[in-house]
């Protein structure tokens, strides 16, 4: 065996991981792996807990997307108890979902991803970060910090906790939206929409054009895609059916409860993260071979942008059309995740505004009657990083007996591994590499926002 290159920790991502690249005797890449070493065991320790407590426990799976776990969980809980929340409660949950995505998108684009593009992939690592950006573009940085913060504070003002929320409850919501809050948040969200439109314009004119060559090559792989759409195929992050698209653009749609018919998980001996794959493709085989992958699909923004037939709001739909004209459907280039994410940022602002303009949003009928019973429920929403699947079963006391969780980034485990290997193989030749090259490999990971 030749040299091992160890990139650890992977930085400017939202979790823990490392990359190990193995070079052969000639100094070319023999193998590369993305290792996830954390295992907290939520699927086990939720057993025995009261079903109605689950939305307050599983938030801790992720401190960046706790709202999404909170909401997927509460939908699974509703399923276990066989209860349908009143229309206003569903709208409140949906509003929280769209509001929570706004600061998340700003965080990823400006804080985590932008340093590579604005300062350069091989710039000084000591300043290749959000603080470096603040020094290079102080006015923009101030706007970014303020918008991200204010985006988060809307939820905090309304529902107490923005990180690890508590307001979605079995059968509905714990607190309504008051009229004065509605007006305040509407003004705030309209301002967020303006900033979102600025952000996508800025990215399209100042950022992406400089990196078109990199976009065409870095981490590029050919896969299928997963995402949630409404009955008529419209992009939706709160509710609908799951669409699983093959690399050729054909797809299957299925209900949440049918996920085990379509999705399997592959386990490698060198990572705690499981690798979901499409088990109806390729006779149920799984392979991360770069030339002929089997069963591999991707999640997160690019994936949702690929699987949807349309977006329901006008500005985001315009952006989707422009994107498709340029890159087709499905678009495979990995760095396009950044672009797709900004289309969704615009959509989230637009959709939150629509919800805040809906007269029913301030309704007072926010919780249905709940009775403890034995049952099973599958709750799904889109998290920024992909389709969240929470599957619970409970006994007649309403205590959890079984859980199965597939979380957003898990869907991308195999694709990230493939993109890392592709990038490393292209960039490291005859034993030559430096920090800029290793960081460029990390850029392929950051595109997935794991």
């Amino acid at each position: 065996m030749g040299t091992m290159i160890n990139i650890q920790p992977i930085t400017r991502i939202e979790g823990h991981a490392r990359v190990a690249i193995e070079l052969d005797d000639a100094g070319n890449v023999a193998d590369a792996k993305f290792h996830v070493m954390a295992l907290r065991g939520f699927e086990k320790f939720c057993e025995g807990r009261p079903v109605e407590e689950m939305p307050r426990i599983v938030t801790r799976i992720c401190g960046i997307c706790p709202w999404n776990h909170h909401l997927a969980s509460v939908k699974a809980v509703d399923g276990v108890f066989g209860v349908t929340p009143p229309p206003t409660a569903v709208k409140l949950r949906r509003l929280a979902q769209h509001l929570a995505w706004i600061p998340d998108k700003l965080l990823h684009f400006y804080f985590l991803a932008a340093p590579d593009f604005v300062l350069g992939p091989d710039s000084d690592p000591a300043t290749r970060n959000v603080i470096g950006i603040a020094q290079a573009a102080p006015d923009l940085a101030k706007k970014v910090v303020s918008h991200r913060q204010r985006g988060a504070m809307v939820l905090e003002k309304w529902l107490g906790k923005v990180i690890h929320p508590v307001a979605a409850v079995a059968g509905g919501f714990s607190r309504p939206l008051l009229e004065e809050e509605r007006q305040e948040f509407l003004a705030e969200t309209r301002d967020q929409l303006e900033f979102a439109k600025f952000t996508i314009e800025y990215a399209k004119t100042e950022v992406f054009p400089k990196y078109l060559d990199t976009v065409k090559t870095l981490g590029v792989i050919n896969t299928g895609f997963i995402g949630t759409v409404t009955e008529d195929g419209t992009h939706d992050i709160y509710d609908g059916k799951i669409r699983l698209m093959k690399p050729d653009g054909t797809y299957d749609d299925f209900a949440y409860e049918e996920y085990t018919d379509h999705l399997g998980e592959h386990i490698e001996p060198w990572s705690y993260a499981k690798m979901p794959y499409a088990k109806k493709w390729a006779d149920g085989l799984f392979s991360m071979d770069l030339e002929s992958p089997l069963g591999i699909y991707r999640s997160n923004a690019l994936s949702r942008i690929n699987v949807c037939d349309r977006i329901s709001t006008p500005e985001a739909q315009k952006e989707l059309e422009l994107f498709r004209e340029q890159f087709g459907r499905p678009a495979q280039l990995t760095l396009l995740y950044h672009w797709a994410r900004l289309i969704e940022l615009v959509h989230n602002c637009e959709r939150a505004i629509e919800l805040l303009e809906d007269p029913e949003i301030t309704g007072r009928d926010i919780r249905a009657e709940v009775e403890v019973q034995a049952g099973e429920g599958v709750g799904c929403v889109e998290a920024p990083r992909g389709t969240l699947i929470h599957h619970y079963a409970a006994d007649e006391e309403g205590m959890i007996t079984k859980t199965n969780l597939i979380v957003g980034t898990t869907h991308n485990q195999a694709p990230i591994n493939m993109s890392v290997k592709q990038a490393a193989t292209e960039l490291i030749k005859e034993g030559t590499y430096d920090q800029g090259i290793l960081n460029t490999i990390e850029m392929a990971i950051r595109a997935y926002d794991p």
Partner: protein
Amino acid sequence: MAVTVASEWLNACSGCEISILNIGDVILDLIPEKLELVHIPALVDSKYFGPTGDGESLTLPQATVGLVSGAVRNAEHEEVLKEMREKVDILIALGTCATDGGIPAQANIFPNEDIFEKVFRDCPTHEPAETPKDVIPLYSDSVTAIDEVVDVDIFIPGCPPHPDWIADALLALLDGKTEWSLPERSVCDTCPVIREEKSAGGAAIKRPLENFEYNPEEPLEKMRCIMEQGYLCLGVVTRAGCAGKEGTPRCISARQSCRGCFGPIRQGAKPLVDMMGALSSIGQDAKSVTDRRAMLNRFVGAHKNLRPLPARNR
């Protein structure tokens, strides 16, 4: 000279790091003249083995202040934590996972083998598989708070800690202070709801399957105490501060009960014991709390508060 800060996350969710970001301008204005972030994986490209990964051993930069979120769950967490202790003057345990284990310490209810058995051999989406072992750091015997492994100078509990307190502690250290702590008050001490202090007469505790009685148009000052409405609320045994320096407890303002995310009021107190006493004292049937042991230790499963029970009692 700027005060240098290094930050690491162990068995954590990154909520504490988002809470650092939520401090906003107060911190941003200090960077980089007064405060310099030398290591924080979420934001800064600083690597354990150097920029090209050829270092011999896991190394963190020297810093005045070290912030560690998350509990210790494996050998690598332990190594990072010990290296951090070595390299910083003042070590801060940030968030309830670091101070008390947090929600992931619910795992301490089960032996490790049960966790692996469930996760890798009992899920409907895959066939049973071997537990991954290649290059994966050794799993610890249990989830431990960081003060069970190294000496800790400052504790900032909370899930997540409020940005006010993170800023307050950092500003105190910038001022040259070496100590900082949250006041020892309970959530109830800062909760404005109405308490009538009538005995519940031995009533069983209700599960939160309906919303509490309150008028949404009226402030919290007009809502009756959640415990007195007959539901479990852990405010009485939980340290105050979730809403920052001012403001009402966060979950209560969402018209939800407290689940104890700021940990015990005093370091080392046992919320399970104290809560059983508190419930009895207001005439409620303390034994009727659903899933009592896990519920009353929801955020504090480290420090041996939660341990596997013999199989027949599980």
